[in-house]
């Protein structure tokens, strides 16, 4: 999404089948629980081989400014393929990953799920909101809110996979020392 309006415009997409919407909702809720439980290897299994997992930095620019507020060529928090995602998981798995021990208590809330058809019968654009809390050590409570747009694909085996994930963090200045989680 390279326009200066960072909230997805399409609001008149036809409704998808209720069973499909239910299946995708359940898929995203289960994904959130895998992340809460730091079950990262199982989480990686939900990614398609060609996953693009993108959390760009967002800029506070004036409305009249024609320069995109989000752009692929700008710095990002995540701009990952599967290999990069695996590297991040690999780090978290080391016994010397000090920022993970004692473990962070993760909380991923997913809501406002909207499923929209695409031109392909086995792929859907899925909008959602994520509210994430990370509790660490004695009193740390770090809050992240994000607007997500996924491309969810049903593979030939019938399994759902995440093929694209665009995560629009709502903070221009990240109010946290790190992002030791996935959204």
């Amino acid at each position, binding site marked *: 999404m390279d326009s200066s309006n960072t909230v997805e415009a399409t609001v008149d997409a036809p409704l998808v089948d209720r069973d499909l919407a239910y299946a995708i909702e359940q898929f995203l809720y289960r994904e959130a629980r895998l992340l809460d439980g730091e079950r990262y290897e199982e989480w990686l299994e939900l990614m398609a081989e060609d996953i693009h997992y993108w*959390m760009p*930095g967002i*800029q*506070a*620019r*004036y409305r009249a*400014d024609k*320069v995109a507020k989000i*752009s692929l*060529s*700008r*710095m*990002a*928090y*995540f*701009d*990952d393929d599967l290999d*990069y995602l695996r*590297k*991040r998981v*690999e*780090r*978290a*798995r*080391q016994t*010397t*990953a*000090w*920022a993970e021990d004692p473990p962070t208590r993760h909380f991923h809330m997913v809501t406002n799920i909207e499923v929209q058809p695409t031109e392909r019968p086995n792929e859907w654009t899925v909008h959602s909101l994520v509210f994430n809390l990370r509790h660490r050590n004695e009193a740390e409570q770090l809050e992240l809110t994000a607007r997500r747009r996924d491309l969810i694909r049903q593979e030939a085996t019938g399994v759902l996979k995440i093929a694209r994930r665009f995560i629009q963090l709502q903070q*221009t*200045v*990240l*109010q*946290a*020392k*790190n*992002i*030791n989680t996935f959204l």
Partner: protein
Amino acid sequence: MSFSHPQSRQTEDADALRGLVDPKQGWLDRSIFWDPAIYAVELERIFARSWIFVAHDTQVPNVGDFLTTYVGEDAVIVSRARDNKVHVFINSCSHRGNRVCFAEAGTARRFTCNFHGWSYGLDGALSGVTAEHLYKNNPTFDRKKLGLHKARVESYGGMHFANFDPDAPSLADYLGDFRWYLDIILDNDEGGIEFIDGNIKSRLKCNWKFPAENFIGDAYHATWTHSSALLALFGKVPEMHADRSYQVNANGHGWEFGTDFVGNAATLCEPEIVDYLRESEAMFQERLGKTRSRMVGSLSSATVFPNLSFLAGHNTFRTWNPKGPTETELHTWVFLNRNAPDALKEKYRRGVMLTFSPAGVFEMDDGENFEHCTASNAGVVTRRRKLHTGLGLGSEIDHPELKGHVHQNQINEANHRAFYQRWVDLMTAPIWADVPAR
């Protein structure tokens, strides 16, 4: 500890401040990371008097381009005016003090205050006043004196620095011998460097000096703090060689480095970057000589006093902006040689993101350290014991080529001590003329 107003410059304050750090033996009083009174003196005597990095030339390439940032806690606008020069001025209206620019970057013809509509040119001069006739014959209203408070701006290798002290030395003198080292980054190619668009900003609940001292000289932490990232990416931690590595410093600026040429660059996990450096080695040698050419991408880190840090090879600059004694706003940029192939831009951008950004596998574990080093000093008893920063005492050597103070072995705290020497010099000097060259 309490101090009289910093500008009153009393000698008893200076004595108290002098007692906080012992750069010769390597002892630091923990209150310098916690005490609001000491922090207030830092804003006055360090940030309001030092050359603070505000922008690279390529961030504001055209007339009207601007960005907003900070000098200490002072919000500033950095703007390229019609004279094609970069100007820096306080982002606060001369009338009621409101912020006059809320965008973090953009292009403008003027900056107009939302409160009463006073507007300022790209050079900060007051250019328009709503219903100006109301001020006719007003004895204290003088347009010329009501522009935005301007900083001195000087640049080195395209890096623009601002300074609010008219008595400060030139940027060239302030950097001193460290310019010779900065050339390794800024001048290893005749095209110089450019900054990649955008920057990542984040807040850490730590005193600004912890990350600044970390980058100036803490090779010691690299293989321990970052063991998880190194194991994940390479399956092992790299070796540092005492006999082939150094810490150098001048005027409180410092660089710890190995002479391995590509050690930092290799951790970006983008082999094309290492290939590019190896292919360019002859050019680096020709421009910089053999010794400095080995530092273009080596295992290293550096800080320009007080709060600009960088990693050669990783190609990231960052500033540590104070937001109170226990909070810091980190601004991170990626840079590369302007003449490097376009495809490399993408490699550096992604490589820095994976390693040295808030979600990066290296940086992840740094913030945790900086925050807890700061928070522990809430304890009054905790603050009674000083911190030991004495690694590498007596390691200074004479080197036929390297400039400034040279210490053998990058695993050392010589640069920490030089940083705090400069810190206490500035904190205790009433005027710049009293600050010794170091």
